[in-house]
């Protein structure tokens, strides 16, 4: 069929894979990308539990404003959309 918008998925060349963990499970990302993108591609959307009812939350504004994608690394709470994936990084669900 006529596609006016080409499919570029196969034309994207990504950097070497790196492996990190999310809540103890291995996840593959690419060196230099942010955690939010790598976790999303791996289907890991539930990144933190909300206060009060513990509801599952994940990346929302993707701009470093909403604080919904925060995760815990080395005990510190950081925004997954502003944190770079590195080999061996241990990421925990926050909140």
């Amino acid at each position, binding site marked *: 069929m006529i596609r006016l918008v080409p499919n570029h998925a196969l034309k*994207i060349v990504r950097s070497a894979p790196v492996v990190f963990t999310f809540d103890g499970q291995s996840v593959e990302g690419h060196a230099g990308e942010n955690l939010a993108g790598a976790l*999303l591609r791996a289907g890991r959307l539930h990144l933190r539990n909300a206060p009060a009812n513990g509801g599952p939350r994940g990346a929302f504004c993707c*701009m470093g404003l909403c604080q919904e994608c925060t995760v815990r690394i080395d005990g510190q709470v950081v925004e997954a959309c502003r944190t770079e*994936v590195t080999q061996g990084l241990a990421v925990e669900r926050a909140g």
Partner: protein
Amino acid sequence: MSDRFDIIVVGGGPSGARAALAASAQGLNVALIDEQSAIGGQVWRAKNASILSAPKTHETRAGDALRRDVLASDITHIEGARVWQIETGWTLHVLRKDVSSELTCKSLVLATGAREYVQPVPGWTTSGVLGLAGATALFKQSLTPPGKRTIVSGTGPLVFFVASEIRRLGGEVAAVVTPNSRRDWMRALPSMLGRPALLMRGAIWVADLMLAGVPIYWQRVVTDVSGDDQVRGVSIAKLDQNWARTSEDIMLAADSLCLGNGLIPNIEAAHMLGVPIRHDHALGGWIPETTEDGGTSIDRLYLCGDGTGIRGAEAAAHQGTLTGLCAAADLGHGTVNLQKQAKAKWLKSARFGMTMTALSIPRVGQAQLTTPETIVCRCENVTRATIEAELNAGAQSSNAIKSGSRAGMGPCGGKFCATAIAQLIAQQSGAPVANIPPATPRPPLRPVPLSIAAGSFDYDALPIPKPAPL
């Protein structure tokens, strides 16, 4: 290098970068502070380092041109840095790599851009729901679609751009849902005819979706998102002309949802510094009062770009040039001719941008989509019922709601609930939203780690300008 500059520009989107370039070209010592690691703002956000190569798009080309210009200039570009406090005079407290430093300047230009309004509906906090503009940020930096099968819902042209980008990145669009009617677009058409290239881009997005058999639900809205720890289904309903629901819901299956209701200016920094604000639906809601060339009632404080009203990237760039020239002229550098040119270009592109903004102006039915159980403040998990209880107990301002219910007090600083809370107050009190200003912003403007080291800028760590082209 010193920590004192003639002009500091905050925000590296098209407006801030052009302001910095214009002032720098007049011979001034300019610093450009931006949160991201590369110039471009949200609209021309650069790809992250994991993307080794990818086909170029309109956005990458525009962003690359801007990045090239900044790199070739004498601007001190301070990337990955967040301004969390500003003292009049001007001293800026800037957080970069966990170290906070102070930078000073004679004149300050704020080009803080826009964020997104997302109307709260039941289930909108479910993982897999992304902001519509948020999705574009994700696409631009990660080239990753939001899921395998996505529903895209929102107002204005952005909903079609996002759907088109999902298809470009290999994702599937389950449906497009837009409160706008075909008639809304027909009415916008005359103002768009002067920009045939932009009109053509939009026509191609829509035509591609139609040819791919993607259903486009016009004059419809998302009413509910279902799914436990991830989106499974999205309910939609038909709207009348005032965007009030007129039909039963139907449910569509999807694993992700991009949801947005137009952009709103980021005014917190200007508001905090004492610039008067006013409400204008046609410009995205609350905007700071500025002169046409970016001046404010505060000496040597200038504002430009979507943070002064949503007019789109092209207008923002021209406005940035104008404001940069004006700031430079006030410091004794520059000529009037260039300002005239920039102003003419700005006004022309602003007309187009405002036609697009008009498609997202909220209508009375929109606020009714929130149920009593719907979470309004995401950070603190505060429902509409809790906020209404505060209202019934006598709270009548955003500030009062905040101290009473904690709504708007979370780490996002109220950025994603202020508009909805104002709507609730308006509904309760019968006053127009224009009478309900947002809560006064307090520092920090951005989240700051509990213990931050004080330090001074390590300029050696900044990228070294190289001659253009890249």
